[in-house]
């Protein structure tokens, strides 16, 4: 339960920190860290415009998207404290829940019959497809290493595995950071601040959403960031007592947000056609982790 509450808590100011970091890096003062949240509350109170082309799919999709991420957050433990939902193989459920959210996002974009939104939808489908194996190989490797198959057990067992476990944890963190960037359509893959629809991925998919729906989609993005941050943090706080784990968790979330801000400040977006290769290359990093696990377990003799 603590895991879920913390994710919601962190999601409140995560994007604020990213924006603040980017502002500072650009030499500006920037808005307060709660500004994104205030924007969402403003959107919640606003009216909305629906396209005449759209059907019930368009109205249903934001709800499914939000619910899928909330449901996925319920699966994330917090160190020694169990998640609300946890069972053997829960990370498969996790990945498929997020996939369902994406599925609805994509068809909602296609529902508008817009040429631009189809473009984003197609890219989203392609990129998330390529990102899929990286996560599965990563979790599969840790399942191999620890002998467990649920988030909670894996995270707690990694800690017991001493320093080698941490080394893999760092690599896993790298994969997860990049996965989070892809899943949230952030910098090396997609530029949330671009002004040209042709070069957008996620932003162009929600062109026609407005009012409450847009607010919900934006907040879901924040939640998703915090969710991945929590996943990364869990690689390091497993088995720690609460008073040590909590500061470490917040520190990791904070540095994750700062890192995202810095990446976005100092990197340019990849060429769209190179994205797929980049994402697929992530799977090879996951494979490195897999071979690392094989080495640690002494299977490669």
């Amino acid at each position, binding site marked *: 339960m603590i895991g879920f509450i913390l994710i919601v808590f962190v999601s409140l100011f995560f994007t604020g920190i990213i924006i603040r970091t980017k502002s500072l890096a650009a030499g500006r003062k920037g808005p307060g860290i709660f500004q994104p949240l205030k924007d969402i509350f403003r959107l919640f109170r606003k*009216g*909305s*415009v*629906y*396209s*005449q*082309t*759209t*059907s019930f*799919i368009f109205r249903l999709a934001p*709800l499914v998207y*939000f*619910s899928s991420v909330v*449901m996925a957050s319920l699966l994330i433990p917090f160190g020694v404290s169990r998640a609300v*939902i946890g*069972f*053997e*193989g829960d990370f*498969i*459920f996790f990945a*498929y829940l997020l*996939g*369902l959210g994406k*599925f609805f996002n*994509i*068809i909602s974009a*296609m*529902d*508008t*019959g*817009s*040429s*631009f939104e*189809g473009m984003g*939808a*197609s*890219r989203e*489908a*392609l990129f998330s*497809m390529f990102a*899929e*194996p990286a*996560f*599965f*190989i990563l979790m*599969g490797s840790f399942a*191999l290493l620890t*002998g467990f*198959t649920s988030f909670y057990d894996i995270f707690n067992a990694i800690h017991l595995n001493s320093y080698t476990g941490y080394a893999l944890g760092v690599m896993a963190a790298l994969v997860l950071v990049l996965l989070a960037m892809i899943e949230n359509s952030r910098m090396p893959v997609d530029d949330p601040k671009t002004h040209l*629809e042709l070069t957008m991925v996620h932003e162009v998919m929600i*062109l*026609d959403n407005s009012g*409450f*729906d847009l607010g*919900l989609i934006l907040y879901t993005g924040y939640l998703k960031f915090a969710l991945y941050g929590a996943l990364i943090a869990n690689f390091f706080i497993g088995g720690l007592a609460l008073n040590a784990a909590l500061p470490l968790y917040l520190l990791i979330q904070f540095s994750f947000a700062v890192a995202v801000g810095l990446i976005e400040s100092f990197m340019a977006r990849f060429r769209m*056609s190179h994205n*797929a290769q980049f994402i697929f290359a992530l799977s090879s990093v996951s494979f490195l982790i*897999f071979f690392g696990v*094989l080495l640690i377990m002494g*299977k490669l003799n």
Partner: protein
Amino acid sequence: MGLESIDLTAFLLGLNLIVLILGTLAIIVLPGRGKPVAAVVSVLSVSALSGILAILSLRYGGLEAVFSMGSFIGDVPLRIDSLSAWFILIIAFVTLTGVVYGMGYMKAYKPLSPISSLHWFFFLLFQSSMLWVCMVQNGIAFIIVWEIMSISSLFLVVFDHTNPRVLKSGINYMVQMHLSVVFLSIAFIWVYFKTGSWDFKGIETYFTHFPNIGLFVLFFIGFGLKAGFIGLHTWLPHAHPAAPSHVSGVMSGVIVKIGIYGIFRVITYLKADYLLLGEMIIGLSLVTGLFGIMNASVHRDFKKMLAYCTIENIGIIGIGIGLGLIGIAHNQSILYFLGFGGALMHVLNHSLFKSLLFYSAGSVYQQTHTRDMNKLGGLLGYMPHTGGLFLFGAIAIAGFPPLNGFISEFLIYSGLLRAIQSPGVDQITLMILAFAGLSIIGGISVLTFTKTFSALFLGSPRIKLEHKPREVSKLMLLPQYLTVIAMLAVAFMPFLFLKIPVQILAANFPGAPLLQNAEVLAYASLLQQISLFFLVFLLLIGFVAGLRYFLTRNSISVSNTTWGCAYTAPNTRMQYTGKSFSKSFSKLFGFILLERKEYTELMASELFPQRRKYSSHYSDIFEKKLIQPFSRSLNRFTNLFTFIQNGRIQTYVVYGIAFILIVFFGTIFNLWH
């Protein structure tokens, strides 16, 4: 098993035969409108009878009736064990929904009504023969019912016989099905020569005394041709689009699974080589799954897409089968349970959602008369039920919660996760590859089904159709809703259905490790728990919907055109099509997904370009690079002998005379010894 149950079995089977004959008579005698009704009644009765048989066999741990068929074939045992029962129940359900849907669907085929009695007769025969295939356990009799099944399905496929392309697909299907018969016959004859028995028990004897792998591979190729494993799959993408949709629904839902049944049946007799075969099947299935879904993602013909998707699902089932074999090899009951159990559950799930998808796709075809998804669009407004049903099927087949596809895929995923803890590096690597491969398959299914669903049902119509599409009749919707109910039942009460695979696993595989009750119960309750989470998830969506309603009840909601990025004259042709949706994917995998483009380049001298055409088609790499060159060279070789078969009657008479002379002189000079 008491004597009464044997009598009862024979009685029910006899009843089945009587229903078949009566149904055929009724179809022939009744006027046009009565024929489908007679077919529905007969199919319903046969389904009910076989369902009773299956349930009885599950209750009493197997039924058996033996018929004597002369000295050569010998006794033909009809055995219904739990494995047969599982497949019989699936066949009974899917053929039933198929015939009801077909009754509505065939109304559109007025010009072909003269052959409709033939069609319905073959449908009856098709259903019964599939059921018999699951019961008969004598090599020769098996080949005969197998052949009846193939032939009757062939006639169902070529229903639209005036279309030459349909006939061509039909011939392709027929040839490949007979290749399958060749392999199966060789296998059965081999067993007969080694053991002297046509009974399936002979296979067990064979496996006990001789090396397993050769015979198994023969059987695997024979059954794999039906199931559509890679390399053996090329009939599927031709036959499924050619057949009327209720037939393709049943074929994809069930007939393909008969191949899986065959493989399972042979595995029950297997005695050795579990590990090797398991690894081989996993590798092959992984490639099958990836290849199937990659091809599915690019095709514009939505029924062809569904056919390739069937190949993908066979791959998923195959991964389960391989996993189970590895479980037997390592004597790990949990792998055995998760692998075979997952595969059997996926057989059920796939037959449900794939028939649903074919039915709803058929409804689209019936209303629009095109299978090209790039010409359609915005159908959800015209056909809300069909659209909703297709979406249901799409979510289920992509394996997403909260529907039944997730249940079986979860079992297989869990099995792979367990199998990762194997001793050897090769196996660990295979498992992690399968694990990642399954996730890529899932990812590409998302691409495929978002593409198909949105190209068909979302946006605006891309071209103006002659007739405005309307929602199909209630008769066609009813079987689809029935299928949805069945799917929901599997999703929310998986333990009820899992019982039967557990029973199969406990009884049918003598070489397998003993199922651990605790493990089975743990997974049964886990699935139950997951169903509960499905419910929580749905409630959550409902809650957020309520919240949105509550918060926005006073705010203004306006309807306007889609934002065209400040372009003021958008038209429906500018929408993203299915082709453009999957283009970047197909470009990346251009080395597997062969695209053939036809267009004329714009010349620099053409100041005023004329209207021009652009067409692009994808072809199957196996068919194009492997089978076609092979059959072409085979053709070239056999053409060398055209001087023998030259079409002149005179020459044939000479052959006859020569033959008679040879026999005559041979006898005279006593050459035959």
